[in-house]
């Protein structure tokens, strides 16, 4: 009796362990790969993973969704999945949770080397870097060389590599510069806890300019600040890019076909956002504050963000095409950067499959045939910020 009970327990626990192990092994199943014979059922349902909550930084994708551009390219259902910092876009892509992901190039390069995953950058949406280091006028921090002996704020989470790459190019390291983690508000700068705070042109810079200067009773202005733009330094790295699963691109013609159609819709979305920044900002603000419960900063802030984002997307180069020189600069920066813990982001060149212009070129060619011109520059509008961006 006693023995059999024990054996029963043993069996039950063995069964439970096996079930758990099996559950852990069951990954996503690629049931619809039809080989490379070119005969496939087109994908009609895809998911795009963002790297943050809905905001105008992702304007083009939401415009494409709202304006029906995905339907025009043959997608019945497109889901844009936000991340609250909990989802790492490239991880979600590797796990098969989503079909495409928005992520910064250096972060994905780090993942590729660290875990050996195979991902391909199929479109470089942001052509230039939007990262800044912001300090108060008069503190004398007008270039990366001035960081020496100063306290420099950074968010971490992979957003810091441009700082270290730019410092490496100036021969500075973390023994001469004090790097400190800052939160996502700009209080560290406003309270003088850091000498220079990290900021994106499209977000945190605006937060400073939406704050009242207690000395004057008016909002801070750009005249109060010294700004180092990493785009102007050796540390500049490529940011928001669209990533796809390399293996799936090679083996699944339906996926490769969907990638091109997806890029066409996205390009049209960004084109609309370029030509109608006010409406695009409104679309994102509306989705973010209602459908997604993302509690975005107010509508004026979103318009500022749309305007600044457009400047990064539409530099005069062709939409989404990866500039080889910029890619090489990013890789060189990633190789040279050493963080405050003495760690490298990557130690060897990424594989050649890490980026491909094949899909975006094909998408642009098809769009050109349809009469879309996707090579213009953006004419910025004037955005007057208000307190709290409301």
């Amino acid at each position, binding site marked *: 009796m006693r023995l059999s009970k024990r054996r029963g327990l043993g069996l039950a626990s063995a069964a439970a362990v096996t079930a758990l192990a099996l559950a852990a092994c069951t990954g996503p199943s690629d049931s619809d790969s039809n080989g490379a014979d070119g005969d496939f059922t087109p994908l009609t349902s895809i998911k795009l993973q963002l790297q943050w909550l809905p905001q105008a930084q992702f304007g083009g994708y939401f415009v494409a969704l709202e304006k029906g551009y995905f339907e025009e390219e043959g997608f019945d259902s497109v889901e844009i999945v936000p991340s609250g910092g*909990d989802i790492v876009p490239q991880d979600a892509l590797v796990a098969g949770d989503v079909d495409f992901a928005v992520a910064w190039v250096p972060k994905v390069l780090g993942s590729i080397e660290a875990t050996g995953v195979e991902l391909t950058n199929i479109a470089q949406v942001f052509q230039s870097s939007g990262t800044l280091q912001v300090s108060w006028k008069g503190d004398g921090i007008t270039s990366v060389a001035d960081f020496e002996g100063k306290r420099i704020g950074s968010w971490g989470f992979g957003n810091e590599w441009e700082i270290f790459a730019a410092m490496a190019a100036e021969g500075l390291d973390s023994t001469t510069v004090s790097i400190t983690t800052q939160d996502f508000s700009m209080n560290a700068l406003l309270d003088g806890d850091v000498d220079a705070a990290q900021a994106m042109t499209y977000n945190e810079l605006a937060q400073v300019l*939406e704050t009242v200067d*207690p000395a004057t009773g008016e909002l801070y202005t750009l005249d109060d600040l010294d700004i180092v733009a990493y785009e102007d330094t050796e540390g500049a790295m490529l940011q928001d890019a669209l990533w796809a699963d390399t293996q799936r691109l090679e083996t699944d013609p339906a996926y490769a076909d969907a990638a091109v159609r997806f890029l066409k819709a996205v390009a049209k979305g960004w084109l609309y956002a370029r030509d109608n920044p006010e409406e695009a900002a409104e679309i994102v603000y509306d989705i973010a504050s209602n459908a997604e419960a993302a509690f975005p900063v*107010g509508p004026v802030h979103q318009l500022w963000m749309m305007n600044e984002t457009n400047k990064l997307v539409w530099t005069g180069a062709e939409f989404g095409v990866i500039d080889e020189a910029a890619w090489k600069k990013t890789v060189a920066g990633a190789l040279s950067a050493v963080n405050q813990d003495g760690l490298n982001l990557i130690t060897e060149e990424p594989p050649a499959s890490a980026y491909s212009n094949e899909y975006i070129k094909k998408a642009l060619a098809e769009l050109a045939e349809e009469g879309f011109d996707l090579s213009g520059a953006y004419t910025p509008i004037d955005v007057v910020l208000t307190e709290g961006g409301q």
Partner: protein
Amino acid sequence: MTEYAQTASLVVARRRASGRGWAAAAWGALGVLAVAVVWELYKFLGPAEGVTIGQVEGQTGSGVMILPRTHDRAMPHIWSMIIRLGEPTSGGSTPPLFVTVAQAALVTLGMAAVGWLIGVAVGALLGLVMQRWKLLEWGLLPWVVVSQIVPLIAFAPVVNAIGNQIDRSGTPWPQWLSVAVIASYLAFFPIAVGVLRGLEAPDRIHVDLMRSYAAGYWATLLRLRLPASVPHLLPALRLAAANAVLGAVVAEVSIGMRGGIGRMLIQLAGQASSDPAAPWGPMFGSIALGLIAAGSVALIGLGLKNYRRGEANT
């Protein structure tokens, strides 16, 4: 005692009870007022940049701050916080902040309630088996205690990852369930310990009496041990409710679940430079949430009044 006297004494007792209720409410309001007064007083008297000792000239961020900053970004006026509650959450035509806070608090309360239920079920089961078999108590109790040492922020992503895995393999596992499970992880502990101690609470003499009646385990459990455990159980349930709310808020933040009060707090805190009063909305919301959760459990106590002899502190 005559019937009249009995009624009279009842009325007096009731009046005394309601008087105590009012007094308690007044003390409560006074306490809240006192906090507000202390806040404003310090804001008025304290230096705007706070007090930092051991600061090295020209070295930003050196020294230790011993008194907090008092300027409007660090410490908004109480009335700014209240006014902000009535203003649109995200500007434009979005609903007022207090409405959004209430909605988010409800979402969190729902997850905390599910977590509490799971916690109570698991905790009660553990308590029962640990009381029934001494061997299991020796084997399990240390692990139950150790389980609470695991930091929640390390544990939460693991639960979330397992949940995603289950969801991906076909069985639907919504994200709120992960939050509820994490909340239950904090909630089950006081229940398990409370039930164990409660079931062991009857005097030896009473247990012996039951034995002399030839009452079996179940009869003893039902007629003696469970009623005797109530004074231990009620505080445990209340502790579990508070833990479940805490767990739900922390879980939301660490797994990035949107819609609840924890995520809202983080989100608004990120915008606090230009809108410093806004994060206080969800902060008030989570305080209200804790009170509601503990209060609802107190209602259970009303139904079990007859068994509450000797409860140390209500």
